[in-house]
């Protein structure tokens, strides 16, 4: 299968196989009108199988969310057809409207307009807790 190489844009590589679509949705890539490729189950020496996303546009969006969904991804920045930067994504310290609090007693269950905010409370174990009620994210 051939996917054209991109000129200016990003390649999200080393996505755990099967998580590509989740990342595609979370980054709202469906809303772009530039070429976007989601390639699933690519052979990988390191990972066995992996997903890759290529976006052929000079995008600037918050990619910290990737650190929450799949901490091992790398983001390659391409300029004029050349790899100019390889980013490792760190765990975000705060997640806003990425996941929802499941605690039925949480204020977010009754106040619909509140943003669902989670903060990183334990980086080693990747534990996020609701800002309001401190319930652990599932």
């Amino acid at each position, binding site marked *: 299968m051939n996917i054209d190489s991109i000129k200016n844009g990003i390649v999200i590589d080393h996505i755990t196989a099967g998580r590509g679509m989740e990342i595609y949705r979370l980054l709202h890539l469906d809303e772009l009108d530039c070429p976007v490729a989601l390639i699933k189950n690519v052979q990988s020496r390191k990972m066995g199988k992996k997903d890759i996303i290529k976006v052929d546009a000079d995008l600037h969006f918050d990619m910290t969310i990737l650190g929450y969904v799949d901490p091992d991804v790398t983001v390659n920045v391409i300029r004029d057809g050349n790899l100019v930067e390889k980013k490792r994504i760190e765990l975000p310290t705060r997640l806003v409207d990425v996941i929802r609090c499941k605690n039925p007693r*949480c*204020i977010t269950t009754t106040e619909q307009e509140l943003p669902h905010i989670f903060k990183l409370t*334990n980086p080693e174990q990747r534990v996020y807790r609701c*800002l309001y009620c401190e319930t652990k994210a599932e």
Partner: protein
Amino acid sequence: MRNLIDIQDLSTTEIEELIGVAEDIIENPKKYAEACHGKKLATLFFEPSTRTRLSFEAAMYELGGNVLSVTDALSSSAAKGESVADTAKTVSCYADIIAMRHPKEGAPLVASLNASIPVINAGDGGHNHPTQTLADILTIHREKGHFEGLTVGFCGDLKFGRTVHSLISALSRYAGIHIVLISPAELKLPSYIKKDVLQKNGIPYEQTTDLLAVMPELDILYMTRVQKERFFNEEDYLRLRDSYILTPDKLKTAKADLSILHPLPRVNEIAVAIDDDPRAVYFKQVKNGKYMRMALILKLLEVVL
């Protein structure tokens, strides 16, 4: 501007300062009688509560201030669908400080993010109740004179007992504290508190279902009520309600200088016969709560005497 949403919002130094002010209020009440003259406390209680609201109101009156009160959520704007954020913004136009109790966890935090005046969390669901913790801390301090090296037993509902969570969190900052957790299996302390508070701070603790077995080692026994409003299921509540009832018999092996605390109200978990035992300090604790709330109001309103 400062708020008190979680007991961890206060450093141990600030807690010591509050203890100092509260003890000064106890010794010299007249000095503080007009300290908050012209100031208004809004008590916004969206969940039934008598003692905490009365304690806040008594505290403000004894500081010479006034009180605006919402005591019944059914009659308030919340019943019409007003958000906590809008309520906080509105009340900021009328009052100088807010004390909020709300059944939803995190509601006082939302209020503090939107109010232009200090907000005190007066209890949010099963989450936090920091001013009760201040009452507990002053009581322990007055009874024992220190926190270091105490063995503190928590008995009853350790799962939903927000006063337990807050007090454990506060005590975990003192050296040599030893915690004993006594509860039925269904009401054990949530594992995140064990991990994030006790283990993280290196606090030794033990868990047991047997109150009598650990009674001789306790310096403090903190009893709690199994609260009906925390259960979705009436059957579970009825089954666990009478799990631990403290009677004079059970105190036979206790230390002579044990202090028995309870955030009140009690239902039947402490026999009335224990009230006359000098080790029962739960009514002193009520009074201490008022003094600590006075000290806190002074601090948050930045009143300098």
